[in-house]
């Protein structure tokens, strides 16, 4: 008996509709209509109406993409659509919206809005009244980034080296060390406010007993900075420790055994065996903590309110945008910050890649 081989029947590929063909999957036409209608709406109608028209056009274009993907069986694309939609609504749209606002003169407690081009950027960077505060806050932020991140990296690394070994009560001490990271920043801030308080605080109490003087940590810039850096390191060094510890426990034991047989020095053992395993995680910790440190505001608000020349750019931004309601100026500062973070992150990624290639 002969068996007829089963051959797959090729599907006929659906052709894309012509540009001007009215069809639910014609995404090119949807974009064209969306852009034209949005432009006309923005030009001719009040902002309260044109906002919804632009929103409707965006929804129409999105719907055309979805129908197009469905008809042409781009199921992969369809599956990621909800995630992309959420990303767009929660992230990309606000970013674009605030970018737009930075080119207008707009205050959230006033009803008027006026296009001013690059005026807000020029003002925040060069105006002799506004700019010095921004630059000062940026310099302070850079100082906090360097101090807090380096402290956390060193302390976190040393803690990880300690907890990579087995010793009595290790499990309980590890939980204790991780606790600060789990506390809310507000709770930690209030705790440190009392810790540093010169009248009620334990730090001044101890120092006064030793020196027989009046110890006030936060009465100078150096002291206030030290207080903030210590509180931040107390909270976030355990995070660095966790990442490094994950790397340390992944090092195969036989490598150390082989090194022991070869009588390799402790430093060589660390540099040639341990470090390559934790380098990637250390760089990750560095990246995360640098980005977070750049946004430092909560502890500053709680401990000094920006006093003693400890104002950071994030807290300054909160005051400009939320307290003084200068929305557009705040948006311009945000984009200057965003630009700096992007440059720093890319610089970091470039260096990390180059190092990997060299390795």
């Amino acid at each position: 008996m002969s068996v007829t081989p089963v051959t797959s029947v090729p599907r006929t590929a659906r052709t894309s509709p012509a540009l001007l063909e009215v069809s639910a999957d014609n995404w090119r036409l949807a974009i064209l209509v969306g852009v034209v209608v949005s432009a006309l709406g923005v030009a001719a109608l009040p902002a309260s109406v044109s906002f919804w028209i632009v929103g409707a056009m965006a929804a129409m274009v999105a719907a055309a993409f979805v129908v197009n993907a469905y008809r042409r069986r781009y199921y992969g694309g369809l599956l990621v659509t909800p995630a992309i939609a959420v990303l767009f609504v929660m992230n990309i749209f606000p970013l674009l919206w605030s970018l737009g606002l930075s080119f207008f003169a707009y205050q959230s407690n006033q009803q008027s809005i006026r296009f001013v081009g690059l005026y807000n950027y020029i003002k925040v960077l060069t105006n002799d009244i506004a700019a010095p505060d921004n630059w000062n806050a940026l310099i302070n932020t850079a100082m906090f980034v360097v101090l807090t991140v380096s402290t956390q990296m060193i302390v976190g690394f040393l803690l990880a080296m300690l907890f990579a070994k087995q010793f009595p009560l290790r499990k309980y001490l590890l939980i204790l060390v991780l606790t600060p990271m789990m506390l809310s920043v507000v709770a930690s801030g209030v705790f440190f406010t009392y810790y540093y308080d010169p009248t009620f605080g334990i730090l001044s109490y101890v120092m006064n007993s030793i020196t027989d003087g009046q110890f006030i940590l936060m009465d100078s810039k150096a002291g206030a900075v030290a207080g903030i850096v210590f509180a931040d390191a107390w909270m976030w060094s355990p995070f660095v420790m966790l990442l490094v510890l994950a790397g340390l426990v992944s090092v195969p034991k036989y490598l150390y055994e082989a090194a022991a047989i070869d009588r390799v020095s402790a430093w060589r053992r660390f540099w040639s065996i341990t470090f390559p395993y934790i380098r990637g995680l250390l760089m990750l910790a560095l990246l995360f903590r640098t980005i977070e440190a750049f946004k430092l505001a909560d502890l500053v608000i709680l401990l000094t309110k920006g006093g003693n020349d400890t104002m950071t750019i994030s807290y300054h931004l909160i005051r400009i945008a939320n307290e003084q309601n200068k929305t557009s100026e705040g948006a311009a500062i945000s984009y200057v910050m965003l630009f700096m973070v992007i440059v720093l992150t890319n610089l970091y990624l470039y260096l990390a890649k180059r190092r990997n290639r060299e390795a």
Partner: protein
Amino acid sequence: MTATTKIKGVMAAAGFAASLMVGGATISYADEVTLTMAVPDWPPTRIMKKFFDEQYKPKSGNTVKLDVDFIPWPDFYTRVNASLTSGEQKYNFIVSDSQWLGAFVEGGYFRKINDLLDADPEFKKTFMEIHPNPLNAYATYPHKSENYYGFPQFPDVLVNFARKDIICHEEEQKNFQAKYNKKLPCTGEELDAMTWDDFRNVGEFFRRKKGEMLAGKPAEDDFYGIAFQAGKAYDFSSMQINGFIWQMGGNIWDETQAPSGQAEGVVNSPEAVKALETYLSLIEYMPPVAKTGTMDIFKEDELFREGKVAMAVNWIGLGEASLDPKTSKVSDKLVFGMMPGTKGPDGKMVRWSNIGGQPFVLTTWTTDAQIKEAVEFVKWWLSSDIQHQFAAAGGQSAVKSVYSDPKYVTYRPWNRAWAPSLDWQKDVWHVPQFFELLTQQQDQFDLAITGKQDAKTTLDNIAKFQQNLLTEVGLIQ
């Protein structure tokens, strides 16, 4: 079914329908009206809510619910500002700091109340009975105009809190007399007569280390003579420094003189610089936290209640906790007087001070039904009986017939300083740029308080900033 039964059934149905209709009419008449209010979380607003729940009976017969959102003081402005500017239209009533009027009136959030006052002569009469200083501060925009926006919720002034167990101690009295050739103030009247020089003397005299003798006993901890607000947050130094500046012949930028009134030359006048220098010179006699720029009104209150300070100038609004033995170690040892003053060229005491307290305001989206009930509520709140009860529970009244009543001074020990202080109250700017002016000024004062720049540089920087900003927005020409 017989005809009689049918008729009975129809009548019963009609009766039931009629009862439903009448009942329905009654329900629709007794509407439920909810007034949503944003207030700072502290005793004066807690007392108001308690009185409302226990005593308020709306004349309209409606069921009126007061839905109060108690917000901690440090977040109060931020939360209210965010609510208003986001457009959520959540609150009908807001307890607003007087200086916010300009920003939120111009933003279209606070409702003008002249029509409500004009429509009710009895209400207007009560309203106009409010002392002119709090009335201007809490209700008018532009400042001191006849455009009214707010009703006083809790009027407040700065007074001098003092420990009589310390300052009236015989040995301390003798030593103070010997050192300064002046009597150490002990009674309320003697506190009233204090100048800032006397205050400084008290600060210097009572600075004691732990173990040194204090009022006949070794001090249990380091002890300090004086305290006042010197914090960077919100307005926690401006409210005190303004009083020094006005008392010593200086001025802040005067919004009532706009657009001809200038900032430069006024804000940094020699008198203002001298006043700020006097303020700064007192910080060394205060608890060490003052040098960190975090001596806000709450820290100052805490230090006083914990028995670390002999005298403290603070708002009456925080006084209730000092009298409560559950929250104060000095509750039974207190005496109160007016805030210290400055002797003028004619030898008379000058007592200008920055007014505290808050009005409540109506928002523009409040419906007619809510406005009707809100006005009734405010009339009830400002009625003589409730104002007396409020004062007796620790609040204050700016209604003349209430605070002039001889009973008034018996309610709380600081009430004796209340009426005389009212005549000496001024307020800081009500313009829309208030918060910008305030934050820059607070930043500059903080630099001076923490010893980073002198009084002249501080006021020069403030004057330059204000001149620039106010010129930009057309308030200075």
